[in-house]
């Protein structure tokens, strides 16, 4: 497949748009359909497509295995950390009211961080799945 010029060129064209779409879904999450989970999957698709076309080593050069394994817990940490910050600022756990001066801003901010956490974890988990399956040798 590496020899297929059309696929390679088209893939390179498409990749940035996939990322942009992922971010759109992510940030549009609080107003329309979307959110961290979907965005994460879309973002992961970018890496997966790249890996499919250019091969596993190339994909792992962009996103090393170590980074993936670091990002998975990082997302959860951001999610849980947001909750703890809310707690430290005086609310209950996962209460975003006190994150900003005004409750509605606080909630906005809180959701943003939580969704970011979700995005990171979901995206990296999907990539990890892909790496795990693609990396299996035939026996």
């Amino acid at each position: 497949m590496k020899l297929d010029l059309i696929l390679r060129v088209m893939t390179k064209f498409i990749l940035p748009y996939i990322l942009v779409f992922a971010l759109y879904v992510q940030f549009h999450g609080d107003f329309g359909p979307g959110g961290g989970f979907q965005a994460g999957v879309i973002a992961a698709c970018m890496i997966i497509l790249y890996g499919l076309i250019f091969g596993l080593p190339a994909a792992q050069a962009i996103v090393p295995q170590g980074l993936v394994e670091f990002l998975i817990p990082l997302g959860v940490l951001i999610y849980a950390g947001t909750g703890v910050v809310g707690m430290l600022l005086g609310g209950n756990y996962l209460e975003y009211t006190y994150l900003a001066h005004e409750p509605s801003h606080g909630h906005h901010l809180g959701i943003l961080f939580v969704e970011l956490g979700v995005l990171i974890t979901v995206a990296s988990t999907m990539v990890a799945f892909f790496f795990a399956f693609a990396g299996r040798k035939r026996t």
Partner: protein
Amino acid sequence: MSAAPGFELGHHLPALQVVVPLIGAVICAMLRNGTLAWGWALIVSVLTAAISTMLFVAVQAGGTISYGLGGWAPPYGIEYRVDLLSAFILLIVSWAGAIIMVYARQSVMHEIDAGKRAWYYCMYLLCLTGLLGIAITGDAFNAFVFMEVSSLSMYTLIAMGKNRRALLSSYQYLIMGTIGATFYVIGVGILFTLTGSLNFVDIAERLVTMQMERPAIAAITFLTVGISLKLALFPLHSWLPNAYAYAPSVTTSFLAGTATKVAIYLLMRIFFSTFGEAKVFEILPTTTILVLLSVSAMIGASLVAVFQDDVKRVLAYSSVAQVGYITLGIALANDLGLTSALVHIFNHALMKTALFLAVGAVFLRIGSVRLHDLDGIGPKMPVTMAAFALAGFALIGTPGTAGFVSKYYLAAAVIDKGWWGLVFVIAASSLIAVFYVGRLLEAIWFRAPGALAQKASDPPLSMLLPIVGLSLAVIWFGVDTRLTVDVAHNIATMLLGGVK
């Protein structure tokens, strides 16, 4: 919404109980290094245990604590609700988690590949998170989520076993666990359509005014069977022996000490504080069914244990039997019965953990837990095996040990109910326990040592201390029953007080 700005530790204890191990698990995964991860996990699990202890003290002093997650007031938001029952279970689970963690380092070093150790501790803490979450949450669906958190991490913990069959066992457990969880969530779904609520207390309040309709029965059915799978009630127990036998030693100890106990907690929560004793036990023949199943477990599983050649499997089948004691106590649905069930949850966690830890120490030294390889190992590992013997005696129900206390109350409960035949069943089951424990002890202490046993010796101190500590606790709680019996009695009174 509520709560004045400013951080107050006492107020946030319920959240911290879950959040601390959760964040701990995440950071564990980022640490990458086995030993570092162990140190961190130890700190986290001890902190968790400390939190549960504080919660327990607070609940005993001031009654039920309610915590609205995200500041949303119950019943609309998710509520963390710590009553005496929850606090008791939290105490057992978190302390088991902490004590086993002390032991874990050497055992994990021996049994898990270097690259996976940090993940192992991560999964351990996640599992702890899930189990604590089930016990603390007041929300039926949230309980399902935590059930999945604990189960998924537990499958991983099992699959990391060195034996290739660990994978298959883990897979079987996954299938059965998923069926169980599905049944549970179906039950919760039916309850939700019936009452429009997911909060246990709220559901209970709404159910009080309702007739016992068929959907409610269907809900009970699915919830009971789903949870029965999780707690390995006969005949839904068969995932358990393999899972126990092939998992790494630390996993087995943790699983045996905590996982089934939390499932039992959930069953009690649903029977007594959601539906209410009157609905479950008076309208439906729950007592009869549960008694039959419990008795089958007590006798059948014990008999199977007698013939097993693998020490872990002997203990695993014994666990199935011991679960039978607990469900028998629940089935009686009287004060003494519930007391005995709760006491036995505590005592069984204590002695089974001690036993499995000791077996883990054997595995560390000789790389086998087949009964034949343990011949004559007693004099070679005297301290470990003396502790093993103590815990074994407790398992039989020898007076002066914790096991006797629970059996005593169970017998009293049965007599209180006027069911004499069951006393003999309990005695018969104990008699079979004499056989399977005696068989182990005879091999360990009185046979000529084999080639493997010859070179065994007591494990390092970090493993020895938890083993010895737990087995001494087995004696301690056989004599001093203030923590166990008095608390259990209060809980029983609370549960039977009915649904307000």
